[in-house]
């Protein structure tokens, strides 16, 4: 049987100190939750130790806060770590969703009556020049996204053991990957819109709707995460 854990005491001075740290941390609030919880339990441990040594509770809390040090310094220590974590997450999401969205678009192209065959995806000779150029651009954008996302992942994991610490690199790579994804998805949506305005009857509706919805969601998410990564990068000195 698991017993309900009694809630931790709320110590106003400790709460204020933690709020000072949180206010200085970059990134979204959900990225701070674990850090704040960990610091909170550490501060209470320290305060307990001072209380055992004979200090009154309020004095013990103050001593614990003094021991933990300048909130700006603690927050600065965490900034690079948050930046890396956010960049990595953004890069992983882009890398995983890219092929899925890509497959939906290929399915749309093959299922619709556009004269595109699987072999012609690689030999684009039979396609109209506009479509060919746009598809080439999509391929370039997808390639940039893939490379930048890989870089973002590589520079935030185990490799940090050997790489020189450059915390601004990974958020930049993740932002580039985000804008690459926006370009690739945006071009896909543009092609679809062009087809809808010229010959909507040739489109296979089900895969087209799925691909468009997936790309739309990805554009929105990629835009948000790219902006977030750039903002975090700007906050690092």
């Amino acid at each position, binding site marked *: 049987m698991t017993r309900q854990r009694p809630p931790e005491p709320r110590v106003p001075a400790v709460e204020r100190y933690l709020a000072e740290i949180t206010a200085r941390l970059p990134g979204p609030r959900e990225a701070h939750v674990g850090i704040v919880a960990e610091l909170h339990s550490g501060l209470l441990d320290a305060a307990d130790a001072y209380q055992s040594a004979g200090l009154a509770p309020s004095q013990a809390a103050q001593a614990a806060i003094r021991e933990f040090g300048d909130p700006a310094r603690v927050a600065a*220590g965490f900034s690079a770590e948050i930046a890396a974590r956010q960049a990595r997450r953004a890069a992983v999401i882009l890398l995983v969703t890219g092929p899925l969205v890509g497959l939906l678009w290929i399915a749309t192209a093959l299922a619709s009556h556009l004269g595109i065959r699987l072999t012609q995806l690689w030999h684009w000779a039979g396609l109209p020049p506009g479509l060919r150029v746009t598809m080439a651009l999509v391929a370039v954008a997808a390639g940039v996204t893939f490379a930048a996302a890989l870089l973002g992942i590589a520079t935030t994991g185990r490799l940090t053991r050997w790489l020189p610490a450059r915390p601004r690199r990974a958020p930049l790579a993740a932002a580039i990957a985000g804008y690459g994804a926006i370009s690739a998805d945006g071009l896909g949506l543009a092609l679809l819109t062009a087809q809808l305005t010229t010959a909507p009857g040739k489109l296979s509706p089900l895969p087209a709707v799925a691909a468009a919805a997936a790309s739309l969601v990805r554009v929105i998410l990629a835009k948000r995460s790219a902006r977030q990564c750039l903002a975090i990068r700007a906050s690092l000195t």
Partner: protein
Amino acid sequence: MRAETLKGHLDGILLAVLERGPGHGYAIMEALRVRTDGQVDLPTGTIYPALHRLEQAGLVQATWSAAGGRRRRVYQLTPAGRRALEAERSTWRDFSATVTALLRPTPLPVNPS
């Protein structure tokens, strides 16, 4: 010993403390103080970002534990962390031997007559 003096060695020091067994942030700081007779004067708050950095590098592994009624993040050395600690040790031995030799007072050279 102040934080500036320890700069560059904090990672190795944290790994060395964790070599004796898993521990949470505050316990690691306590162990550091005990092992150095209170010579280390490091703001406890700076230990935590350093531990997160080690975790990101795969040198330590962290898990939440609720032992004793308080949720704490407990850190543990990984095999890679052990290897990194060994590397840190041998680098430090070479470095300190060299600097010790260089700083040793040398007798004045005898003037050749």
